[in-house]
């Protein structure tokens, strides 16, 4: 029995090892008669960020299915997706982006800033355009071939600051005092850089900048120091669990209610309310780049229908909206490229096609409304953020509610500051 099992395992593994490289030598299938438009999408479906990546992958593919089956594809050409699991692993991302280029994809998308960080150097060098969902300024400052689908972590900070000055601070004299509590990675550093660059211009005084880790369990010590500086605002740019710890600790120290708390979009989800408790986070503000589930916008009904039909367990998850919107933007870019340059110019999926997709697709985006699901999408020369708008929400009765109008985050040319990226 043991020998049989061992032989079986060895045969299976040997076949896997021998056949996998042969796939690379296999003749490429001839072009489909339907003339597809091929795009590469990667999501961290396994690995450390799987709980987000899995939902985002579902949304990406559900939206493409909707586009192909109900909208007839893009200008009559179905979108073919090469969807791969990055496992949130940089080495895998490097191999995946090369595969996207090899297989004639016209552009690619990522679902996390880590994935795009690993892919951007290779993509930029080849001129292969990519769209990052959840982005940080380092991905596209200075702008090259990587674009941000949603406002980045720096934009969150500035959008919230603008909102605060206009709606909460209004009429008071002097500068409001901001204390920053930041996750020690690009999620936090994006906000730090934004305030560093624009605090004086906005008329804000930064009284303290503290960092925390993703696994923090207590921030009593840092918050005690912050409390002594008597800030008007505590801005947190982090993920849900550490943000919940910070708000709970602020509550325990008697800082909150009192101080205004603002959160960046990476943490502002239902998970924050679940972890911290509805009573503790009542009244907390947060930014988010999309509308809420159930809002009355043109794209909501179809997205909800597909989500409930194909992945009902994802209903209510804000990441689903973000990635659904990402696929809609991909389709719009391809539509513009086909309209302006014709399908034949894109058919080869080579560097020439990539350039056409950028110049005739990305660069022609103008006030595309993404069916109302996120802020309008416009390309502005020198600014690779496709959306510049965030909304500010507030937690009321345990729900994310009170959406503001779309708040524009100004362009910050970070590369002009000597400290950027160092």
């Amino acid at each position: 029995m043991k020998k049989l099992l061992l032989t079986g395992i060895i045969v299976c593994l040997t076949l896997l090892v021998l056949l996998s490289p042969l796939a690379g030598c296999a003749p490429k299938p001839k072009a489909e008669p339907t003339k597809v438009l091929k795009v590469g999408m990667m999501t961290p479906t396994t690995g450390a960020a799987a709980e987000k990546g899995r939902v985002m992958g579902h949304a990406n593919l559900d939206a493409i299915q909707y586009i192909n089956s109900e909208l007839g594809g893009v200008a009559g050409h179905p979108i073919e997706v090469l969807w791969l699991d990055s496992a949130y692993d940089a080495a895998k991302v490097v191999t995946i982006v090369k595969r996207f280029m090899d297989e004639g994809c016209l552009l690619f998308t990522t679902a996390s800033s880590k994935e795009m960080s690993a892919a951007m150097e290779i993509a930029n060098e080849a001129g292969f355009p990519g769209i990052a969902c959840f982005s940080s300024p380092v991905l596209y400052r200075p702008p090259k071939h990587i674009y941000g689908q949603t406002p980045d972590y720096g934009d969150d900070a500035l959008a919230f600051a603008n909102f605060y000055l206009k709606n909460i601070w209004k009429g008071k004299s002097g500068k409001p005092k901001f204390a920053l509590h930041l996750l020690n990675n690009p999620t936090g550093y994006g906000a730090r850089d934004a305030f560093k660059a624009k605090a004086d211009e906005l008329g804000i005084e930064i009284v303290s900048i503290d960092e925390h880790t993703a696994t923090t369990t207590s921030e009593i010590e840092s918050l005690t120091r912050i409390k002594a500086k008597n800030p008007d605002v505590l801005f947190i740019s982090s993920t849900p669990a550490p943000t919940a710890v910070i708000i709970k600790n602020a509550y325990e120290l008697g800082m909150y209610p009192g101080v205004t708390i603002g959160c960046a979009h990476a943490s502002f989800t239902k998970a924050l309310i679940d972890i911290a408790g509805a009573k503790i986070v009542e009244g907390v503000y947060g930014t988010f780049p999309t509308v809420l589930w159930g809002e009355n916008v043109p794209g909501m009904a179809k997205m909800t229908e597909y989500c409930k039909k194909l992945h009902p367990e994802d209903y209510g998850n804000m990441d689903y909206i973000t990635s659904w919107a990402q696929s809609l933007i991909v389709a719009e870019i391809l539509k513009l490229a086909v309209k302006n340059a014709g399908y034949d110019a894109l058919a080869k999926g080579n560097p020439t096609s990539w350039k056409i997709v950028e110049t005739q697709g990305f660069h022609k985006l103008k006030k595309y409304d993404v069916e109302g699901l996120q802020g309008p999408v416009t390309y502005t020369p020198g600014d690779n953020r496709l959306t510049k708008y965030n909304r500010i929400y507030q937690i009321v009765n345990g729900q994310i509610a009170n959406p503001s109008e779309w708040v524009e985050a100004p362009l910050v040319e970070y590369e002009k500051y000597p400290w950027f990226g160092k």
Partner: protein
Amino acid sequence: MDLPCGTRNFDYASDMAVLRTRTHWGLFFLLLVFIFTAPLYWSNYWLSIANLIGITVIAITGLNILIGYCGQLSIGHAGFMAAGAYTTAVLTGKLGIPFLASLLCAGLTAGIIGIVFGLPSVRVKGFYLAITTIAAQFIIIWVINHWTSVTGGFVGMKVAPASIASFSFNTEPRQFYLIMAIAALVVFFAKNLARSRVGRAFIAVRDNDLAAEVMGINLTYYKLLAFFIGCFLAGIAGALFAHWSRFLNAENFTLADSILYIGMVIIGGLGTTIGPILGAVLIRLLQQGIMYITPVLEGTFPTLPAGFTTGIGPMVFGLVIILFLILEPRGIAHRWTLFKAAYRLWPFSY
């Protein structure tokens, strides 16, 4: 050493040769032809996987010298790779040092750090030594994350492609030749090291350190030498990874990677030259297989419970390691040896 039926050696040189028969030379020639022509028929994607395998082979050949030959357990190998990766990134990117010099410096830096963290091996072994090497993993990554002015901290840093004089290894085929050449040199070095006085000392230390010491083997020297060589090769692998991936972040060198490397050495075959190659090829291709399978499963069975596919990778790797530990603890290399012995004796059964 086993030779095919009817083959005899008549002098010491031919007895010690790595390639001893015409078949050996023929197969070696075919392998060279295969490697040198691979970029003609492999896509960039498959070349990138081959490059990743090559880098992994270099790293775990070092780990195999440390664990497989000298018996010193290390669970901080990814940390040592990080040390090499950041050394070359800083030297080439910020100080303008040529690639070859920085590659050597990367190896030396990782080797010296390895000696520092290997010092406890003089006093402790087994699980206790494993814990001290885990400390290396955490300390190295902590330093990288917090030495922001040099390493870019949590944000990470860009790395230019490797170049020698004006020749840049900026395409996948060029990187393939560079990485394969270095991997071949490393494997050749490991093969010869194992047959040398040093290699025999390592094996003696591994098998019974007390007996080795009684025979006159300097335990401190040879244990630290093993750490130096193992970590030197990890540093070289890290440097090649940096120039291949073009962007470094400490998240690329995790404790999970260190454990995976140990798994590769075990599956390939501890204490053999071919083991690291077989282990790296198997696990890296398995990872690619899982990358294909996950989206297919997600698409075909949309009703799978949430979280099922997310756990496929860890489940498969765990299962493979468990099965090997139970059914073939000496790894694929041992199976390969049995297979060679069988076909050399064929048609005789003994």
